[in-house]
């Protein structure tokens, strides 16, 4: 019996190539999209799973709050301050191992071997027992002891090849910061992409020079709990730990510091702190992609259902014969469902090939290294399960329709032209186009919001603006700064801290006694002007006024009044509705290293963003303290950028302001990095919209071909009775335009609501433009008309006699 069914299915496929192709291509594309999305989601949800015992490993995050409870500014940070590791070990016996990775501001972290030199973002100082907490896989050497010696260095194969030209350079040496030598004591297998760790080079923390105040910055603390230990009770004990050891917050009452404990498997998708090693994932995007993948698969399944039921009359005789021979409706239903499963199986094979073909591009686009292991049992079960589920669900309706044919009717040759409900087919086309319209609208809104962020998000003029990292206190008055400023392609320079990404949070008391929390960072004279900004009130820092300069923290005194510039949001926080009123006002610090120091507001700068348009602009206070300046900002003339960049690089080579290669970046690149996730979302949605478009068009093409063929005789009669080609064309095109119009009507309002809610997650966003809705509707209509017009025009122009003879 199965052989008879299979033979009928495969031969029917071979004899109806056009429709078979439409079905197979549609299902293959749908399956391929599902495979790739599933692989990506699986990958995102499997971060750190490659680490043995990862379920028992946690990382500490810092919770910084400046201000009273319920007020002020808060943020969490992936790194914590303070010599915390030893205290954790002593205070919590349930912690079996605790170790940290550090990357201090005070060191350059450049590596040099022969002609290869770089500042590696993945360079970390590691406690010697780091591999007890994070047991990464060794390629050579003993990870238990590799970092015991102060000059010990562990690196991945990739880094080994980069610097040493070989995978396993055990015992070889490399130069650090042009000062000291480190020795390779072990090599790691390259880390997979599903890890939050960007670490590829681990140097022994025993070699870190101690800091004068004992503080450690940018420290990532990992701990492995003893089996059976409760993370909940550890979390409950952390506030008391903070009270016992207030690191980094020298006893200021209104400042709070807390720790949170996060399982490392949750870091990628759920950690939201600053100073993340790598950009985190977005669980909402995973959810959205999963839904979109299902919708694409649904679109492909709809094509199958529509084409099978529309062409069911082709199988009417077979159904009648099988029923006359004793086949029950159940037998026939099973037969046609089985046929659907066979279609899906064939389509799945094509889909796997397609997914393999596209995987490298996907990995490159997402910056991941996803791989398929088809013989991995869960994958295999998943693929076969998908074939069965889609095959059965898509096949049920056509099977029920086909198996319902009455043999007495169909065997007499007077069977139905097309069985099943024509209305249902129209409804399914409406659904397909609704999916398409939703995706197109989402794509349009994401693109517009991304463009808005890139263009206007920062709110300052970032064109031709370059930042160059220099040594702290190595910017103002340095020879390098002077020489760069003198280059003909340079419009201007100004020094600062990395003010967009590097700022603290402190508590201040305003003149009327209120306490407010403000971010604080450091910029030099001319910086705001370089950004194209003018004061809203007062003035900016001036090179000619020594009183604008604020001493480093340790040198500040409460007897001086220090000049400061604040932004508009800070002015409002301090109680000045009108920025002009803020000028000359004095307020004092409460929680910085020298509480009680006084600030006088000399100017108010327009709000500009430090982050993407997702977050509101915070209140910021700017100080001119040159020892903290580690960034030279350079505004270039537009006409000579490549030559000027080369000149800057040459100057760097000659003058070596840092014992490391130059690190420079255009501000455009910074904003692009801020919006990379949005741009990725935009590209993903564009791709899926294009796929949905292709599938909807394919389905419509097949339906149109069949419908036109079925109506050929009718068309011949109409033409014989006087209908013109245009009349016939209008008749046929209207049949397929109607569902598209309905799809627009029912989809656009809920899509608009959904996208409005999506936009509201941004602090600053576009308003939904009406033209986008009109354009979306117009595009779908044009696509539908173009798709069906080919067949329609051919038959509309045919001679009536040819149509009337059509059987």
């Amino acid at each position, binding site marked *: 019996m199965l052989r008879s069914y299979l033979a009928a299915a495969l031969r029917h496929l071979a004899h109806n190539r056009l429709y078979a192709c439409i079905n197979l291509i549609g299902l293959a594309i749908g399956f391929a999209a599902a495979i790739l999305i599933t692989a990506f989601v699986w990958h995102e949800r499997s971060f750190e799973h490659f680490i043995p015992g990862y379920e028992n490993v946690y990382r500490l995050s810092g919770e910084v709050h400046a201000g009273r409870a319920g007020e002020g500014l808060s943020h969490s940070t992936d790194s914590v301050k303070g010599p915390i590791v030893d205290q954790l070990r002593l205070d919590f016996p349930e912690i079996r191992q605790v170790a940290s990775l550090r990357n201090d501001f005070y060191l350059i972290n450049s590596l040099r071997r022969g002609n290869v030199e770089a500042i590696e973002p993945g360079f970390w100082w590691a406690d010697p027992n780091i591999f007890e907490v994070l047991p990464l896989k060794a390629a050579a050497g003993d990870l238990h002891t590799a970092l015991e010696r102060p000059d010990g260095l562990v690196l991945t194969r990739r880094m080994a090849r980069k610097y040493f030209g070989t995978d396993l350079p055990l015992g070889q040496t490399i130069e650090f910061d042009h000062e000291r030598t480190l020795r390779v004591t072990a090599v790691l297998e390259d880390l997979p992409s599903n890890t939050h760790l960007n670490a590829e080079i681990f140097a022994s923390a025993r070699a870190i020079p101690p800091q004068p105040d004992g503080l450690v910055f940018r420290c990532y603390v990992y701990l492995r709990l003893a089996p059976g230990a409760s993370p909940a009770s550890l979390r409950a004990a952390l506030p008391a730990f903070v009270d016992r050891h207030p690191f980094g917050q020298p006893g200021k009452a209104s400042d709070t510091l807390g720790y949170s404990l996060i399982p490392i498997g949750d870091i990628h998708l759920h950690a939201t702190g600053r100073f993340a090693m790598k950009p985190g994932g977005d669980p909402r995007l995973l959810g959205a992609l999963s839904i979109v993948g299902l919708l694409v698969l649904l679109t492909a399944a709809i094509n199958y259902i529509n084409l099978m039921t529309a062409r069911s009359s082709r199988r009417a005789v077979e159904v009648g014969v099988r029923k006359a021979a*004793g086949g029950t409706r159940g037998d026939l239903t099973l037969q046609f469902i089985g046929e659907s499963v066979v279609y899906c199986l064939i389509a799945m094979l094509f889909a796997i090939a397609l997914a393999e073909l596209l995987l490298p591009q996907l990995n490159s686009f997402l910056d991941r290294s996803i791989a398929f292991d088809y013989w991995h049992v869960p994958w295999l079960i998943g693929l076969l399960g998908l074939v069965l589920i889609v095959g059965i669900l898509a096949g049920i309706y056509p099977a029920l329709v086909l198996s319902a044919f009455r043999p007495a009717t169909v065997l007499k040759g007077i069977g139905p032209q097309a069985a099943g409900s024509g209305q249902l087919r129209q409804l399914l086309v409406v659904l397909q186009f609704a999916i398409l319209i939703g995706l197109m609208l989402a794509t349009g809104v994401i693109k517009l919001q991304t463009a808005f962020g890139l263009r206007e998000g920062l709110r300052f003029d970032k064109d031709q603006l370059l930042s160059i990292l220099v040594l702290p206190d190595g910017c103002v008055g340095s020879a390098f700064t002077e020489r760069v400023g003198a280059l003909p392609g340079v419009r201007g320079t100004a020094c600062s801290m990395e003010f967009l990404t590097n700022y603290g949070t402190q508590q201040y008391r305003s003149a009327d006694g209120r306490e407010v929390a403000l971010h604080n960072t450091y910029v030099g004279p001319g910086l705001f002007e370089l950004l194209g900004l003018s004061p809203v009130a007062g003035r900016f820092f001036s090179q000619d006024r020594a009183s604008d300069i604020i001493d480093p923290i340790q040198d500040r005194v409460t007897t001086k009044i220090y000049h400061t510039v604040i932004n508009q949001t800070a002015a409002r926080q301090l109680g000045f509705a009108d920025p002009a009123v803020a000028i000359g006002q004095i307020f004092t610090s409460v929680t910085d290293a020298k509480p009680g120091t006084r600030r006088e507001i000399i100017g108010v700068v327009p709000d500009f963003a430090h982050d993407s348009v997702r977050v509101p602009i915070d209140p910021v206070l700017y100080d001119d303290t040159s020892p903290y300046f580690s960034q030279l900002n350079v505004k270039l003339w537009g006409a000579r950028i490549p030559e000027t960049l080369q000149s800057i690089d040459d100057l760097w080579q000659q003058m070596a302001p840092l014992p490391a290669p130059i690190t420079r970046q255009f501000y455009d690149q910074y904003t692009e990095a801020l919006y990379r996730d949005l741009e990725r979302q935009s590209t993903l949605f564009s791709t899926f919209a294009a796929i949905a478009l292709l599938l909807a068009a394919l389905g419509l093409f097949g339906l149109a071909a069949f419908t036109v063929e079925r109506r050929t005789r009718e068309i011949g009669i109409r033409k014989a009775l006087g209908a013109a080609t245009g009349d016939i064309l209008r008749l046929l095109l209207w049949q397929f335009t109607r569902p598209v119009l309905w799809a627009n009507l029912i989809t656009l309002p809920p899509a608009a609501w959904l996208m409005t809610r999506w936009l509201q997650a941004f602090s600053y966003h576009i308003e939904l433009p009406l033209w986008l809705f009109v354009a979306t509707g117009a595009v779908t209509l044009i696509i539908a008309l173009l798709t069906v017009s080919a067949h329609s025009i051919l038959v509309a122009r045919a001679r009536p006699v040819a149509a009337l003879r059509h059987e």
Partner: protein
Amino acid sequence: MLKLEHVSKIYRTTEVETRALDGVSLEVAAGEFLAIMGPSGCGKSTLLNILGLLDSPSSGVYSFFGEDVARASEQHLTVLRRGAVGFVFQSFNLIDDLNVAENVDVALIYRGVSASERKRRIAEALERVGIAHRSRHLPQQLSGGQQQRVAIARALVANPKLILADEPTGNLDTANGEAVMELLAEVSRSGTTVIMVTHSLAHAARAQRTIKLLDGHVVSETLLAA
């Protein structure tokens, strides 16, 4: 063997009621060769469909080999049909996607016959109708006469008690029509009951008895002279 008592068949739509059969009573003996004649629309095909359990009467009694099936469910009719009835149609009704052997196989696959037994019976049936040499051809590759032979082989392969032929020579030329009639006569001689609808007096004369229908009634009955 087959007994119809006052059988009527009414087709109803929302506006129209058509009485295809009106109080037909008929008996068919086992092994009989019966021809049914009448103008278009007289109810011949409806009668054949009811006799072949493809349809149920609106009223009356139909005794099929001793069992009253007039009110039987579709499921039960299918089971009865499976074991006892073979069909031959005017338009052959072969499945285009299956070859000759596979088309004949369709009559066996729902009867729980083993694969080896099916293969044997198919070969036998094809041999009987003289088409075994084309067993792997598709229907489109055969002439009309050859296709009808395949259809007869399909009707015979399950050894049914009853064969119903609805204008089996309607789409064939004279020579092929004669060949098909000879096959049906031979089937009847072997003991199978054959009921045939035909427009051809010459072909009806091959049957033992001919009944004529008009407007859903049996209007005459003719026995073949012995």
